[in-house]
């Protein structure tokens, strides 16, 4: 048992990080907020880099890697706050022509009835007839709601575990970004003649940010290795917490500036909120774990 990244995995993560730093840096993020819309060229670049075809077998023209690698790539996407129906397109690779290459943008109707990026998608999985657009809380994620959508999936619904895991990986990346932003600000901003990071109240907010990130990371990576639905549900719950609480604490560390449109903090929080509703939401993961708790025999 060696539960740590291999050299290849580190290289892959760095590769995705470099690509996103080049193609979707902070200026690009802010530009996307002002001019919403999917950057098709970037989508194709991601496709060329193998982002969508990562888990497709080499015989089928894919990269032939596994869930752990996909999780690392999605973590980076979450860290960069990359917009778009990334998970749906990734899951469609190999099934929907052009998805693997980033030529076709695929979105999916969530069991609760929400659809991300409906107007921009080339292919919609699920029935979205009559869907109406919402004024999305996240300026970077356009949302529709289907006519029959209740907001809650059916009680016996089971979300695709891979969709849940990739969502958790994005949350992990966003949580990591929140921690980095908070620490940067705590070092730079001065009050009472010293960096606010020297004050224990601020320090402790930052420490808790990191603790949540590291616990979520262990859970998400382990779930990627085992692909066990219970592990995936646990990972999702911890990653949701790390991202949502992390963004809120990051906002607190930023003070008044954190409450502005100018600061990126709200973008982290709003995206984290959107993801908590995806793929059955946290409730479905909780109920799954509750069932496992009862049935796990002789663990």
């Amino acid at each position, binding site marked *: *048992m*060696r*539960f*740590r*990244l*291999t050299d290849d*995995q580190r290289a892959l993560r760095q590769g995705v990080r470099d690509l996103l730093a080049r193609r979707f840096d902070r200026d690009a993020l802010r530009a996307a907020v002002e001019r919403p819309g999917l950057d098709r060229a970037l989508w194709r670049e991601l496709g060329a880099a193998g982002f969508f075809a990562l888990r497709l077998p080499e015989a089928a023209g894919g990269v032939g890697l596994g869930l*752990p690698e996909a999780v690392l790539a999605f973590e980076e996407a979450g860290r960069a706050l990359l917009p778009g129906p990334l998970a749906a397109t990734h899951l469609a690779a190999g099934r929907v022509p052009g998805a693997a290459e980033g030529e076709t943008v695929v979105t999916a109707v969530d069991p609760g009835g929400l659809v991300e990026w409906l107007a921009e998608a080339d292919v919609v999985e699920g029935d979205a007839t009559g869907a109406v657009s919402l004024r999305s809380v996240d300026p970077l994620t356009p949302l529709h709601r289907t006519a029959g959508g209740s907001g809650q999936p059916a009680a016996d619904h089971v979300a695709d575990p891979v969709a849940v895991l990739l969502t958790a990986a994005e949350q992990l990346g966003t949580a990591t970004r929140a*921690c980095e932003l908070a*620490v940067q600000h*705590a*070092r730079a901003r001065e009050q009472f003649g*010293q*960096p606010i*990071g*020297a*004050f*224990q109240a*601020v*320090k*402790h907010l*930052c*420490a*808790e940010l*990191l*603790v949540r990130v*590291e*616990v*979520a*990371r*262990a*859970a998400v*990576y*382990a779930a*990627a*290795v*085992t692909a066990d639905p*219970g*592990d995936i*549900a*646990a*990972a999702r*719950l*911890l990653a949701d917490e790390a991202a949502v609480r992390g963004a809120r604490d990051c906002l607190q560390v930023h003070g008044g500036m954190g409450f502005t449109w100018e600061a990126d903090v709200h973008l982290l929080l709003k995206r984290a909120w959107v993801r908590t509703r995806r793929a059955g939401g946290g*409730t479905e*993961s*909780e*109920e*799954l*774990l*509750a069932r*496992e*708790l*009862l049935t*796990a025999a002789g*663990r």
Partner: protein
Amino acid sequence: MDLSYSPEEEDFRARLRDWLGKALPALPPKPSPDDWPGRRAWDLGWQRMLYDAGYAHVHWDAEPTTRLIFLEETEKAGAPYVGANFVGLLHAGPTIAAEGTDAQRARWLEPILRGEEVWCQGFSEPDAGSDLAALRTRAWRDGDDYVVSGSKIWTSHAEVADWCELLVRTDPTAAKHRGITWLAMPMDAPGITVRPLRTLAGSAEFAEVFLDEVRVPAAHRVGEENDGWRVTMVTLSFERGTAFVGEVVACRRVLGELARAAHADGRWDDPVLRRRLALLEAEFRALWRLTQWNVSEASAGGVPGVGGSIFKLRYSHARQELYDTAADVLGDAALDLDRPWVLDRLSSLSYTIAAGTSQIQRTIVAERILGLPKGR
């Protein structure tokens, strides 16, 4: 990333499981919590059984993975944990192994492993808890001995200990962190008075220790004179880094028992309770994964890094939450000291204090891991 175990590791697991199946039924009944000599004998008896079966070393020089398997299997089988041997096995021993001389290793390590000698930790003082380096217990040199006077507090298992890892001030003129020395003090030396303190759980788990011109041979000094703070950091990194990991498996077992109890009495139909238990299940799964991650990053027998503070922080709060949830499952029975989990709930209140409070751990994480500036 690999979470599978090699055939050799699985073989170790199978042999251990097999041995546990035979050894545990042979254990004598557990003495009452107030019977300290009885508890000492029982805990050491278990350690001796481990020694005879070849498992005593498992916390020290075994492959980190072997250690995880050992913790998993012993906890699952309901085997005793380290008990009175806590300090010796989990931090005094490892400190001596890392910082002691050959003679010191030869003198102290085997008796710990064989279950012959119990250690306690004489760090905290009435006026030096979180601010440990403010300690005032004095030691001065007299021939081949140090002569020690002062007092220690919250010393767990002091009543039944043979040795104490003791911090003393050897240079009162030096800066706070510079004049400290780490000594191994025999607990039967003249001049030592142990006064038990009653905990909120009702038992005498720890004690005050008064030291009146106690003579400790200079040969019992671990590390250099006045370099004890550095040695202390090694001790604390073991205490925070690795000492709690086994208990995560125990928490998962308790959680399963809680779920079954709630199911049996119909409380399971309450979605709020169900989801609270599920969140704890997520929590302890993740803490076990974090353990596996930390262990994979560490080398065998090495000194753990400050990452242990992350684990310690999260774990101590999770365990308190676990027993608070147990109280919800119990309802009125949570007020009955004879019911399971009620004493555990009381004990769990110490986790966010002992071995460095949560506030201190947060400061460590912020300053030593995140690199935030030190406060004035």
